[in-house]
């Protein structure tokens, strides 16, 4: 049994067959019509029956922002918390309750701006959390300020002459923060989104899934280049473990390693260079190539944007280690005896 299976075994299975309907709460969904969040919600609700876990043992924890309303719409346990803190709250829950499947729903502002610290520490600890980061490259709920993933020069209400600061690349950031599982997907690609969710759910430890999500009110079309069938062919690189990294019409383009710098670049595939096309290895112990893949995309045009699982490696899981220490302490010292603890070593007796 792999570690992944062992962790999933701790969460009770559902009795009987579940359907998407079982995961819909009775609350009216209140996102703007046309919001990408609807697609993600439907994908998650549709995917949950595949997991087959008892829904009372599933918890969605979110921060603040449009996407963070997500838990209200899931008929599981849920907490809509405060801005940026969901990974910290979920860490306490997951570390103390290993029989739960804990999911964090967050956005680019929530996870990368106000909550940046909690995100990177959750990733480094490798707590058993699945983090869905809805990235729409804008602040929606506060009505349209630029976000930490907005492209430089973004004109918004708070940046009428254009934003000045360089954006984060969430996948690069996660890999740099020692994440053991990092993936990217797109709201409108239900099949791809579901497949990435499945892999994230199977992963022991923290899984970060960046979901490109369209805000049709404040940043409409931000990912259009990845969605438009014609343009996407040239823009999107679909990563699949064990497969050569090729894209474009008929796989006419590919990714190779530059022998001089070690960096990655895109080439037109020819019979001469075909053998040198990089084969994607998501399980590589070194994060180097996964990081290089995350740097392929042009932050402004999104050309050469890889989607799929960048990195998926097994390493010790925080909550497992914590539970092991508790077991070891009982083994070494016996189950705690309160009276003995209170008495301590040096005592004296006063007789009446």
């Amino acid at each position, binding site marked *: 049994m792999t570690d992944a299976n062992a962790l999933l075994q701790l969460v*009770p299975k559902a009795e009987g067959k579940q359907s998407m309907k079982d995961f819909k*709460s009775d*609350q009216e969904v209140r996102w703007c019509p046309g919001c990408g969040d609807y697609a993600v919600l439907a994908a998650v609700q549709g995917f949950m029956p595949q997991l087959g876990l*008892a*829904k*009372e*043992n*599933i*918890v969605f*924890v979110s921060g603040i922002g449009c996407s963070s309303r997500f*838990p*209200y719409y*899931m*008929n*599981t*346990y*849920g*907490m*809509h*918390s*405060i801005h940026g*803190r969901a990974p*910290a*709250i979920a*860490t*306490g*829950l*997951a*570390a*103390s*309750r290993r*029989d*739960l499947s804990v999911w964090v729903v967050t956005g680019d502002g929530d996870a990368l701006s106000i909550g940046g*610290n*909690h995100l990177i*520490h959750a990733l480094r600890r490798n707590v058993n959390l699945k983090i869905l980061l809805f990235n729409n490259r804008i602040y929606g709920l506060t009505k349209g300020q630029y976000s930490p993933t907005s492209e430089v020069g973004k004109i918004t209400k708070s940046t009428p002459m254009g934003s000045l600061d360089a954006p984060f690349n969430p996948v690069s950031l996660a890999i740099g923060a020692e994440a053991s599982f990092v993936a990217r997907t797109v709201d409108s690609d239900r099949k791809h989104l579901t497949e990435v969710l499945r892999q994230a759910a199977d992963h022991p430890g923290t899984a970060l899934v960046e979901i490109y999500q369209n805000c049709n009110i404040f940043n409409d079309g931000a990912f259009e280049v990845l969605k438009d069938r014609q343009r996407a062919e040239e823009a999107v690189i679909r990563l699949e473990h064990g497969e050569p990294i090729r894209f474009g019409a008929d796989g006419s383009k590919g990714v190779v390693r530059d022998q001089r710098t070690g960096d990655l670049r895109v080439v037109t595939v020819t019979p001469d260079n075909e053998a040198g096309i990089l084969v994607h290895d998501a399980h590589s112990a070194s994060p180097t190539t996964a990081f290089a893949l995350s740097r392929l995309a042009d932050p402004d045009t999104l050309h050469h944007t890889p989607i799929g699982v960048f990195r998926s490696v097994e390493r010790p899981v925080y909550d497992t280690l*914590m539970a092991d*220490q*508790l077991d*070891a*302490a*009982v083994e*070494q*010292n*016996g*189950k*705690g005896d*309160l*009276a003995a*603890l*209170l*008495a*301590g070593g*040096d*005592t*004296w*007796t*006063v*007789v*009446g």
Partner: protein
Amino acid sequence: MTSQVSSTAEQADGAVVGEQRKAAGAKDVRRLDRVIIRFAGDSGDGMQLTGDRFTSETASFGNDLSTLPNFPAEIRAPAGTLPGVSSFQLHFADHDILTPGDAPNVLVAMNPAALRANVGDLPRGAEIIVNTDEFTKRAMQKVGYDSSPLEDGSLDGYHLHPVPLTTLTVEALKEFDLTRKEAERSKNMFALGLLSWMYHRPTEGTEKFLRTKFAKKPDIAAANIAAYRAGWNFGETTEDFAVSYEVAPAAKAFPPGVYRNISGNLALSYGLVAASRQADLPLFLGSYPITPASDILHELSRHKNFGVRTFQAEDEIAGIGAALGAAFGGSLAVTTTSGPGVALKSETIGLAVSLELPLLIVDIQRGGPSTGLPTKTEQADLLQAMYGRNGEAPVPVVAPRTPADCFDAALEAARIALEYRTPVFLLSDGYLANGSEPWRIPDTEELPDLRVRFAQGPNHALDDGTEVFWPYKRDPETLARPWAVPGTPGLEHRIGGIEKQDGTGNISYDPANHDFMVRTRQARIDGIDVPDLEVDDPDGTARLLVLGWGSTYGPITAAVRRLRGAGESVAQAHLRHLNPFPRNLGAVLAGYDKVVVPEMNLGQLATLVRAKYLVDARSYNQVNGMPFKAEQLAAALKEAIDD
């Protein structure tokens, strides 16, 4: 937990009582009723350890005692400087005492800086033991002594014992294979041995302690024990120490029982472990290191075999966040911090108020504002605990009064949190945290039952008869909502910081509902059942009431004893519950012509009391990082009585 029996003894200045004994050829032995000793040296001289050991010896001998460690925030401040002086004061007696004492009878000064920094606190006639080896010209000049205070007559009013502690220690350890520097390190044990001889302290405990502490370095253990014994023997043989002192065990001060010495942070840690056991819930601590609270994190980390999970978070916010997550999952959740950490946690405390989940917020107060005085004590977070959040966000506040009382206060805070499903502040402070006193070890069978019932099924029937679970349907008595933990089938629900509809817990922006929810949250806290305030007013004729809270209990009670000993009538009451106040507080205050509120802040409790009860409470304040001195407090109260 000293006995509450009133005694006038604390007003005496360590006066010699009883007979003097002198066996033939032996030195004088005098009996004292109490002694205050202060050990002072460089931060690296091991003064805290020396004080701790003397305290343990004294505790096992059966004296009542109270301690005051006092050290700089720097780990190793520049050697030989005034800011680098670390000290440990211990007051022990043959009767019950309440404070570490105002003025030391004995000062052990390991260097000129320690002498200079502390001599001003000594009454005339006090004994001063100095390590003459450190009184070099350069070391003295460093702290502004132009001439040697050991020779220029400036210490004529004191009983000075010049002892070359370093030389004697090195000499005593010459048989050991140690460098001079290594040997010198044992000079604190030499001093401890000398003081242990002077006050007839038992020695086995310290020798055993040294053997255990240096179990992996038996040579170092042996050297320290040799230095300790050499100090003892030096006292026994040298002419300079003609007298030794006995302080009899405080047998009558203590109710029967088994006792140990305990510091506030240790008692608080044990209280949390006990609360977890009594609630039958696993303990989860989310914390970020901060002085003077870190010792609780350290202590709880050692008790994983009690099912205690300790989580050292990336910051204060994550510390309380993780705790709140664990509370949602059904743990007894705690976060520990000091004032600056509370500021960072405020938003999450507000969320806990809105979620109505049990959560303990332990604030070991220190000097503020901002970073302030990390190692010094203060009571200036009361209003932060009461009001430091956005919106109407009432939180109960409980405060321990002595180091040992931190145990009971932790249990009481847990009771309120669990029964009423609310975050609760436990306001300790640096003085209680690091100070220590004897503690009667409670019988675990006597501890309160804190068990709670998690929600197990539907709690509401809709009009059509459907059984549903409403996460915000309240207990009519306590107004607490059900605690339904994930993993319970059929009770899936969502909670959050947005205003909720009464009952269903669904998001609601309805004006009338918000007004109702705000008032209901307040009513739940206001309705918490807390015991009535007890007033100590022995003859019933007092016109002045002293009202305190928290760690001022010791100094206030000592001051009140002094006044009563001098024939004054004064009443005393001490608050454990700051929110809600005891139901009878208004009536108690109305029963006195004058109310004085001594606090280590600028009048925060006084402000609350004046606002709520419209009484003309007067503040007496001290904000110097140190506890009140009983004598000064007594003088201030006397002035108020006569006013």
